């Protein structure tokens, strides 16, 4: 076609968005999972005793805890059932390994809908190499989705 230099960005716009880089378009102004996820969610290590993690998570007001390594790569998840496990066990034995995680760029309305339909209380948000960005709570996702929906509608109501 007569072009001297042509490159194929193989990993595409998902790679770009997963890195949190800015985009243009109608979705650019929509809240995303990474904006709403709580950065101060409790984390723990594989070898910690579950009773210690339970106490720490609940004292912070959470019924969940994300299991990470030294580089904050997500290894597992402890929800209520796992936190309530019998004392004396290491986290590694009771955790949910390899949880489904979502990238920061995912639209909050999509995640909120899934979390409500599937009755999922929390979901870890990670970078494309698995590092924890934060833990998203269903109620926070639903609220953000609703607020954005109202914001979208308000110009109509003003007329």
């Amino acid at each position: 076609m007569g072009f001297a230099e042509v490159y194929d960005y193989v990993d595409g716009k998902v790679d770009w968005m997963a890195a949190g880089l800015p985009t243009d378009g109608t979705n650019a102004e929509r809240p995303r999972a990474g904006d709403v996820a709580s950065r101060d969610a409790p984390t723990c290590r594989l070898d910690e005793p579950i009773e210690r993690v339970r106490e720490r998570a609940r004292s912070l007001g959470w019924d969940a805890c994300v299991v990470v390594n030294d580089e904050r790569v997500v290894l597992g998840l402890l929800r209520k059932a796992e936190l309530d496990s019998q004392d004396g066990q290491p986290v590694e034995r009771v955790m949910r390994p390899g949880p489904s995680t979502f990238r920061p760029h995912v639209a909050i309305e999509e995640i909120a809908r899934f979390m409500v339909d599937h009755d999922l209380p929390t979901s870890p948000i990670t970078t494309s190499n698995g590092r924890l960005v934060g833990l998203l709570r269903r109620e926070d996702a639903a609220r953000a989705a609703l607020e954005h929906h109202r914001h979208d509608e308000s110009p109509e109501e003003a007329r």
Partner: protein
Amino acid sequence: MTSTEQRPTSTVERRICTRCGVELECCAFCEREECAETICYRCLRIQVKQSRVRLTEGWQGDDDSRIRS
């Protein structure tokens, strides 16, 4: 699958993705075996616009192992 055949519904004995019909062990979103909205990893990623995780990235917890073609 012909048009005269009915798409099987998701049951405890035979779980299938409610989007594409592929068989799977549990819902890729909530990881529950008995989920009325069972979805496979691939459909979930397409729906929320995430790429498939590439093994070369060293991400731990790849959900692909749950999918049965």
